[in-house]
């Protein structure tokens, strides 16, 4: 057991897959996530299991889809009989520690993990400005002082860039001038509107109810407050989101720089992921919830700061679909622990280790990389990824298409909230290759 690696799982909240400068986005500066990219393998087709905090996190700790573990929405109740990652690791000789945002409903974190820090009143959905720097302090202190003989699994839940939600709430009941009117930015300082800013008005009902209809949107006051936004205000939303991404990247930098000089550098595997994405103006939408690509497509990197663990460096895996349910089997595989029956995910370890020698680790030419991996990959793998959205919809993302199945209520007024007397009626499968990614920000495609 002592030879098994330590595992550091750093996660951010509400970060779309391409809000990373290493993936070619010129509007955000993330040197420390870029450092992870250079020191590891980026799974470029990584998806959350559900584009909301609690469900996505419930899948992280159970390896199950949200419809299975009881947390299909914020406020769900996780089934008592499902073991979580902390319990499994602890009972198999690991020191499992949690720090920062937990937000897995109805599963007391302290019964599963050692609590390093979770705020004065356990961190809820938001508060990056308050909590992230304290979480980082706690991690620095931990890496400085940990002296147990058993390996650790440390998961660090950083809240930002989730504070972009408060930026939006700020518009609910007051008029805020745009950045040019404020005199703080010029138009050319703002990122351009995403190429998919104009949404398809024939979009499926699910997207309409979440993003357009004040009667059904979970954030109707925001929707009402930004209805008359100018294009520059939408661009400023994206600009602000990137600043919050940079803020959390700076916290990640402190953690990595601590690990770099700690005695754990040579035996620590780092996993980085986001729970879900942020629309940031794509499809003229904000936040997450729906099955649009920007909500469900997230970064996922496995890296090390050493050469002792078998992790390829600087590789962009554009071939394999990865899901939030893969975290549990991946962590357990690296920890040398048998994966419990029923877990849905797949271990990424074979993909990571399969060919550090096969892959030209120095190249960033994705096309070349894809050709190599396609020819040499013999590891059985899924050719789609499955995503749920509350009770409302399901998506199957394949290489060419995204198939979306939505549930439609018999009567609209029964639709919300779904846990108060809802009745769901399955109407049919809506097939739609629903959107294009953010054009020039799409990496290596």
């Amino acid at each position, binding site marked *: 057991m002592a030879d098994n690696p330590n595992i550091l799982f750093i996660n951010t909240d509400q970060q779309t897959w391409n809000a990373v400068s290493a993936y070619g986005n010129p509007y955000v500066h993330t040197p420390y996530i870029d450092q992870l990219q250079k020191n590891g393998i980026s799974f470029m087709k990584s998806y959350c299991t559900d584009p909301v905090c609690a469900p996505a996190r419930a899948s992280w700790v159970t390896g199950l889809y949200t419809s299975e573990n009881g947390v299909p929405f914020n406020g769900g109740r996780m089934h008592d009989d499902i073991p979580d990652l902390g319990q499994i690791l602890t009972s198999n000789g690991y020191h499992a520690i949690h720090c920062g945002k937990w937000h897995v409903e109805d599963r007391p974190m302290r019964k599963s993990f050692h609590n390093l820090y979770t705020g004065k009143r356990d961190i809820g959905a938001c508060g990056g400005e308050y909590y992230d720097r304290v979480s980082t302090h706690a991690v620095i202190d931990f890496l400085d002082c940990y002296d147990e003989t058993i390996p650790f699994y440390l998961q660090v839940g950083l809240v930002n860039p989730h504070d972009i939600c408060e930026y939006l709430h700020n518009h609910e009941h007051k008029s805020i001038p745009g950045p040019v009117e404020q005199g703080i930015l010029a138009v050319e300082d703002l990122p351009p509107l995403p190429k998919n800013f104009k949404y398809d008005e024939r979009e499926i009902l699910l997207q309409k109810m979440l993003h357009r209809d004040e009667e059904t949107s979970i954030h109707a006051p925001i929707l009402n407050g930004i209805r008359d936004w100018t294009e520059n205000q939408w661009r400023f939303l994206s600009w602000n989101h990137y*600043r919050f991404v*940079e803020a959390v990247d700076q916290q990640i930098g402190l953690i990595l720089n601590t690990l770099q000089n700690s005695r754990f550098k040579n035996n620590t595997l780092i996993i980085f992921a986001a729970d879900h994405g942020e629309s940031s103006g794509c499809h003229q939408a904000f936040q997450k919830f729906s099955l649009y690509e920007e909500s469900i497509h997230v970064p996922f990197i496995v890296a090390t700061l050493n050469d002792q663990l078998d992790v390829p460096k600087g590789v962009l895996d554009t071939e394999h679909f990865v899901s939030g349910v893969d975290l549990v089997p991946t962590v357990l595989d690296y920890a040398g622990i048998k994966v419990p029956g029923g877990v849905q995910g797949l271990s990424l370890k074979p993909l990571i280790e399969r060919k550090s020698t096969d892959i030209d680790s120095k190249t960033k030419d994705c096309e070349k990389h894809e050709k190599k991996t396609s020819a040499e990959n013999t590891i059985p793998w899924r050719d789609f990824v499955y995503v749920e959205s509350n009770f409302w919809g399901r998506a199957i993302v394949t290489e060419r298409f995204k198939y979306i199945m939505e549930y439609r209520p018999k009567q609209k007024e029964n639709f919300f909230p779904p846990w108060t007397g809802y009745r769901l009626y399955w109407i049919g499968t809506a097939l739609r290759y629903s959107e294009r990614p953010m054009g020039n920000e799409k990496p290596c495609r």
Partner: protein
Amino acid sequence: MNKLHWSVDYSYSSKLSRTKQIQENFQEEFKKILGDSLSSSPIDFNAKRKTHRYTLLPNFWSGFKSGEDTNLNIGQVSIERQRDESEIWRYKIEHENTSSGEALSLNFYCDSKPARPLVDSWQIFTKNSADGSYNSLSLTGKWNEQINGVRSVKMTTANGLVIVAGSIKHNETLTCNWAIFDILPLLRESISMDRLAILDDLEVLKKDCYIKPLEAWVFENGNEKYTFTGFCVFGKGLPPTYWWLTENGEVAVMSTMLTTYVLNGRSS
């Protein structure tokens, strides 16, 4: 009641009646705290020793306080500085956020130049009152000698673990976010400042920061009127923060995304 400037007005309503009641107190609380402090004598701009204290008001209620706690205040900060005979300012910051549970003490020195560049070494002490095994942290920071025109900023824990906070070019100015309280009064003539590097809380290096002037704001409290000069500070990893200065050059209000800092006391 006269409205506050949009950049510091968080007396919004909410769907939750309880939250609405509390947040509607925001403006009342804001005006009471600021009105009381502004009614005291301002500090001489050239004083060699000065202290400003601020109350932290949460911009958003949900999630940051217990549902039974109706007190808006979520902490305070004290900014104490003293200029010595060699024109070096010694800063002592005491910051407490009751939502995060962390108390932060910072000690550092700045040159008296307008951009208040950090000099010498600095100390960071934290103490956590929230649940969890993390109790406290002690860090000492310092500049390293420049190598190839670059200076690195390093911190060392009490156990000797070295953490690199980042590096900047030798000719770049690096200041601390808490020194901005003294930088802005020198920019009151609508001057902006570009490409400033800020060592946020003495540990997070934020490069390419900007200070931009805003329109003036007349703050009305009863029969009293105060004309404030505004600035916006932002940069890489730093979403906009809004600062409002009195005619005497003291920061009366500063607002980040989640917190509004309201002047509640001053002394020299």
